[in-house]
């Protein structure tokens, strides 16, 4: 059983009581909500005649259903309009801070909470969205919840939870040029599997992790859930503190030094005990691309789609299903696979450094004929920062569309979606069947720089060959 890890310390600090049913009541420090998974929770609260326990600890934005072309109200889609209007009414009724469209602070919930300094080390963070694991990048214990649990947090600022085991994922070395946090996490999931993390929190540590920026750490923790781990985290360090200092909700003045001292005390120390440890060498990781229908079906861009013989027996039925669905031949190279649509954005890779990496590839090149390529900044702040340094113009000059912030084609609850059997190069997080809005649409997951490389060549391309 783990002890003295950051997970253990934060868990103990937020433990309210042991519940009669056998689970632990855990205080939730930060609750984030959006328009898709909250309306039924507010309705349940009303049905039960309950008030919100601590409305000041819930923060809202709108992201999943917003169009990325025309965001004028009312939306063209009446269902989308109804969902946003419902969120607005619920926030007004309960006194919840809502970062709406045009506020300058709207965006994907997992992008805006960090950039506003809402997410801080040592917090418990919950949101009705599985990619809440993103916030673990700050040394928070952050996890996705369902709508019944959203109701519970609204009513009590707490949840009934069972403690996880802790697996340390130790990464030595450093990532090669052209290899990013996205490649690292796709590689980890490839090796440990999409169910390898069930029952675990993943602690990412080691020299390669320490060298990552906060935005890269967010990409890494974002996809812990794709490996089955409900939360992933990185111990807070100077990189974390430098990112937070000066942000709107970060502590300031005399509180800052006290905060840093407390945050520093939370990190897993040398005395920490883990339930499990796995080691990786960052230097051995190539740009990674998925070829199948789960995020675990990934390979280096210089590899071939694995054959059945190369696949573990228990994984073979899924591999066969993936060959059929993706229409890819086992044993054939993934590089050179033609694509139709190129999407840069999402809570995984819609931040400023992601757009910079993609723009560096797009700059001075042209989107290949017949390819639809578009860039969706993760937030209004990301959009403003990217425009201030001219990234939007780089993309537009190269033939990409520059869009308004939102979840966009990651999950296609908005007008952005694949048509028919189109195949996308996507910087998002899920390549499930039908995920991007067409029941037969196909998704190849990769880093934003790799998506840009696919856009300008029209096919899956090793981005390292395009870098100066």
């Amino acid at each position: 059983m783990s002890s003295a890890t950051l997970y253990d310390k934060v868990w103990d600090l937020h433990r309210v009581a042991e519940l009669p049913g056998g689970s632990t009541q855990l205080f939730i420090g930060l609750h984030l909500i959006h328009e898709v998974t909250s309306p039924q929770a507010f309705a349940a609260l009303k049905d039960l005649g309950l008030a919100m326990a601590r409305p000041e600890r819930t923060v809202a934005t709108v992201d999943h259903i917003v169009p990325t072309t025309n965001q004028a109200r009312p939306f063209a889609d009446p269902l989308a309009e109804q969902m946003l209007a419902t969120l607005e009414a619920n926030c007004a009724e309960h006194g919840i801070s809502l970062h709406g469209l045009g506020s300058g602070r709207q965006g994907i919930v997992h992008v805006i909470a960090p950039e506003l300094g809402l997410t801080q080390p040592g917090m418990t963070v919950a949101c009705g969205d599985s990619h809440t694991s993103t916030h673990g990048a700050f040394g928070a214990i952050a996890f996705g919840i369902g709508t019944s649990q959203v109701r519970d947090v609204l009513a009590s600022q707490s949840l009934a939870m069972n403690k996880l085991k802790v697996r340390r994922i130790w990464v030595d070395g450093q990532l090669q040029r052209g290899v990013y946090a996205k490649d690292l996490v796709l590689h980890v999931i490839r090796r440990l599997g999409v169910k390898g993390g069930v029952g675990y929190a993943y602690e990412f540590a080691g020299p390669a992790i320490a060298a990552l920026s906060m935005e890269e750490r967010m990409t890494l923790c974002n996809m812990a859930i794709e490996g089955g781990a409900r939360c992933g985290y990185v111990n807070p360090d100077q990189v974390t503190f430098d990112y937070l200092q000066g942000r709107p909700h970060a502590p300031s003045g005399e509180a800052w030094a006290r905060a840093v001292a407390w945050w520093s005390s939370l990190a897993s120390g040398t005395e920490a005990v883990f339930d499990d440890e796995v080691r990786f060498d960052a230097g051995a990781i190539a740009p990674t691309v998925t070829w199948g229908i789960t995020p675990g079906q990934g390979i280096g861009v210089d590899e071939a789609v694995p054959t059945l013989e190369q696949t573990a027996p228990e994984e073979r039925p899924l591999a066969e299903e993936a060959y059929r669905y993706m229409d890819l031949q086992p044993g054939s190279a993934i590089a050179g696979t033609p694509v139709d649509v190129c999407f840069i954005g999402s809570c995984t890779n819609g931040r400023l450094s992601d757009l910079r990496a993609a723009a560096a590839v797009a700059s001075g090149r042209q989107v290949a004929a017949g390819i639809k390529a578009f860039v969706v900044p993760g937030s209004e702040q990301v959009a403003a920062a990217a425009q201030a340094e001219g990234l939007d113009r780089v993309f537009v000059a190269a033939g990409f569309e520059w869009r308004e912030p939102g979840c966009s084609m990651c999950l296609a609850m908005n007008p952005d979606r694949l048509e028919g059997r189109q195949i996308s190069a996507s910087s998002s997080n899920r390549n499930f069947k039908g995920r991007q809005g067409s029941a037969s649409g196909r998704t190849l997951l990769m880093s934003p720089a790799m998506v840009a490389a696919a856009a300008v060549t029209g096919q899956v391309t090793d981005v390292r060959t395009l870098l100066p």
Partner: protein
Amino acid sequence: MTTPAFPAGPIRNHRGRGIAVVGADIDTDRIIPARYLKCVTFNDLAVGAFADDRAERAGEHPFDRPEHQQASVLVVNSNFGCGSSREHAPQALMRWGIRALVGESFAEIFFGNCLALGIPCLSAEPSVVAALQEAIAADPAAELWLDLEVLEVELESEFAGVNRWPVHLDPGPHRMLVSGQWDATSQLLANAAALDATATRLPYLQQFAQAA
């Protein structure tokens, strides 16, 4: 078909016909595609259950087959319900008629969402799941008896007689279901004083005044 009442109170057992959805890593986008999430209530979600898979199989998906229309026990393989945290997935299954699942393993958030609705997700050895799936295919009218108190599944069919296998449920969720305490809200509200005490010791809620 009238949908039976939603779960309430202690969940000690369940009797019902089985329905098998075969395959590993069936994610919640497949259980209910995102377009069905454009709603402000869960009431009408039954139609979205496995919607794309059903369309693809044009009437041959188990959820469309006439012999499974009365089924209430869904038998699945490993890592069922992975991906998105959408409670719409178990809500859609529940509104279609599912009251319990038996599978090789379940994704964590999906398991918790089912628990919050009073729907047990019982895990079983792959050989047991395979036997159940075969038995359901051979005799869709056969009834499964799930005994949560002793953690067994029993299947009585015309062809194979009575078979009984062990199933697993972690002690916490097990106790919550059989005691009827799976709906956590009232338990959480009962500890207001302890909750306030916890908030008081959290440095980030106290301007870090109690920091180390």
